[in-house]
């Protein structure tokens, strides 16, 4: 089981982290809110996008076969990987075959799922993150704390200090433009030197064999066009049927994620360099990673998890995430989507604590552009987790609770007793100890509503 509670407590103790997060999340919420100010347009587009995702998942095996067929026809080499280890092996094999010793990488959460950087480094391949946020994280030796803005937990002076320490010749500056310029200079020549580029995929189009990739910095475009080999890694759920399906999803994705009508770059990759192309890689590879997705797909209650388009709006609006940040989850995907996804792809043994770490407030469900029923899935996962547990103090307590509340006579007797002596329950009793850390003890009423209703002359049938 993970350490969410402990990590959260540590994160909450940092006023700086809380300030950074709150400011950042407030900004993101405001930008998204401005994009969807027209409630009718939002609900229409959202319904459209949700239908696209549901339809794609309903036909997932068929669309994946079609994608393989069209990509292959486009000379994109398709590889299937059941596990992250298999996917890593495929990447390494491609790099070895091409003699690539350095890799530039565009932002990809699936590559995080694979822990690709660590794997390649262990195998003597140098891999460089080229998305600015990811670059910062790599320099700091950390993991992303947000799926869209990986270093959102850091503020300007932390990044300034990091650049000064880690980048040769970089002078301390807190000016965002200057910081970007330092990173740009450090990264630019590396694109040209790299033996391969690795990126993720936002959507893959089955009918046309097209890989869509959105980004704002041009590093994705460079990673997919300058090196001689481009390797795209993708979760199998990201396939859609047609280019028409991409339009609503693209709009929902960028507006929900960063509050942008469209990103600066929208890459549509449909083949390696053709004879008459002036640039582009010699080889394009697509690695389709399962990593538990087929099992999720086969489970009707959990399948909607796969509708997610990874916009991150759920975490931006989450009262838990916005207070503790992504690292508290000790997971690849943090926030509400992480709470439902991680236990499903990596198991309850590691992530069994995440489904419980929610007040079920539903703020995430309100803003999800493809209507992933996150709270319902959280409850569903809590139920699955309960089934794995044997007899415990908790299960005995719940059985007692059930017997009491399923027997009205017993219930009235117990509530009457509690009304008389409930106040004597000490503060250190189970549950009350946690409750009274920051709250006064609840007071049992001397007379229950049952009694007041009877005394008040109400029909008491």
């Amino acid at each position, binding site marked *: 089981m993970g350490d969410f509670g402990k990590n959260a407590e540590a994160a909450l103790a940092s006023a700086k982290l809380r300030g950074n997060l709150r400011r950042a999340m407030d900004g993101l919420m405001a930008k998204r809110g401005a994009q969807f100010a027209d409630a009718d347009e939002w609900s229409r587009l959202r319904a459209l996008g949700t239908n696209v995702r549901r339809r794609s998942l309903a036909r997932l095996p068929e669309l994946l076969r079609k994608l393989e067929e069209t990509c292959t026809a486009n000379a994109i080499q398709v590889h299937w990987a059941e596990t992250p280890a298999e996917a890593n092996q495929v990447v390494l094999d491609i790099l070895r075959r091409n003699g690539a010793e350095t890799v530039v990488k565009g932002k990809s959460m699936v590559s995080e799922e694979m822990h690709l950087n660590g794997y390649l480094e262990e195998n003597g391949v140098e891999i460089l993150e080229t998305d600015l946020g990811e670059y910062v994280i790599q320099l700091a030796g950390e993991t992303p704390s947000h799926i869209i803005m990986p270093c959102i937990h850091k503020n300007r002076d932390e990044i300034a200090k990091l650049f000064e320490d880690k980048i040769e010749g970089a002078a301390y500056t807190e000016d965002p433009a200057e910081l970007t310029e330092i990173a740009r200079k450090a990264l630019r020549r590396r694109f040209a030197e790299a033996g391969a580029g690795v990126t993720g995929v936002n959507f893959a189009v089955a009918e046309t064999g097209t890989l869509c990739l959105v980004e704002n910095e041009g590093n994705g475009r460079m990673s997919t066009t300058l090196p001689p080999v481009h390797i795209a890694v993708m979760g199998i759920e990201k396939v859609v049927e047609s280019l028409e399906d991409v339009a609503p999803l693209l709009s929902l994705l960028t507006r929900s994620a960063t509050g942008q009508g469209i990103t600066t770059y929208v890459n549509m990759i449909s083949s390696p360099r053709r004879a008459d192309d002036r640039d582009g890689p010699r080889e394009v590879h697509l690695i389709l990673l399962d990593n538990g997705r087929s099992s999720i797909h086969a489970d009707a209650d959990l399948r909607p998890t796969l509708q997610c388009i990874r916009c991150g709006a759920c975490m931006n609006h989450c009262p838990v995430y916005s207070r503790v940040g992504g690292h508290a989850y000790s997971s690849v995907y943090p926030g509400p989507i992480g709470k439902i996804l991680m236990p499903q792809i990596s198991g309850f043994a590691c992530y069994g604590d995440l489904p419980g770490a929610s007040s079920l407030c539903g*703020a995430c469900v309100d803003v999800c552009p493809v209507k992933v029923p996150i709270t319902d899935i959280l409850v569903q996962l809590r139920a699955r987790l309960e089934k794995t547990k044997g007899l415990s103090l908790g299960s005995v307590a719940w059985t007692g609770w059930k017997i009491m509340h399923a027997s009205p006579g017993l219930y009235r007797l117990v509530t009457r007793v509690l009304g008389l002596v409930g106040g004597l329950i000490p503060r250190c009793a189970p549950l009350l100890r946690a409750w009274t850390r920051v709250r006064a003890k609840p007071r049992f009423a001397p007379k229950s509503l049952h009694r007041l209703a009877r005394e008040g002359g*109400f029909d008491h049938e």
Partner: protein
Amino acid sequence: MAGRTYPAKPEAVYFFGTCLVDLFYPQAGLSGMKLLRREGLRVVFPKGQTCCGQPAYNNGRFADARAVARQQLRLFPKPIPVVLPSGSCAGMMRKHYPDLFAGTPDEAAARDISERVFELSEFLVHVLKADFTDLGAPVKVAWHGSCHSQREMGVREEPKTLLRGLANVELVELERERECCGFGGTFSVKEPAVSAAMVADKTADIGNTGAETVVSGDCGCLMNITGALEKQQSPVCGRHIAEFLWERTDG
């Protein structure tokens, strides 16, 4: 809520008090019943009522939730509205009962009740079109709507409409009105640190408004918020909306 069709004013209603009100806030329940009676309704309080089953349901204990919820299904045989002084428990009955009993012999009863369930403030506004005469002293209040009231029942404006209708009440809005207070049932004790941070922010938000009273429609939130206010020795007090309305309008 927007989109829900409300019935004409009935002659009688059932009142489901909820376990939290029964044990800790009976005056809120009693006030709700008196408000309904004063509007000319016969209010029936079924004796066998205990709890809607939500605590077990939210913890993934579906069988336990069903056993307790099944006990409630029998209590409302007549085709009249069921009114609750809680958006959260109302949400449980309205949104989750049909799923909880899907494929069981009780499915039809669960669906029937889910159609008849109303949160108190939405019932007062949309069905009874209640118009209150404020007899209280001038007071500044803040409103906190529960997450489930807002998101499962779609009740957002109704309680504020009722508060704004009181001549001597100044309603001030919280900066983060729609943000969870950190209660979340067992969440408050399972993740005490996060819950504590959430309620600390909520009470600070309330404090910043200068309100003397925070009014809510759900006793879970109230217990959390007023518990924290009390521990902080804040002068701000909390009231359930039913009790608040009754206190100010009872001649």
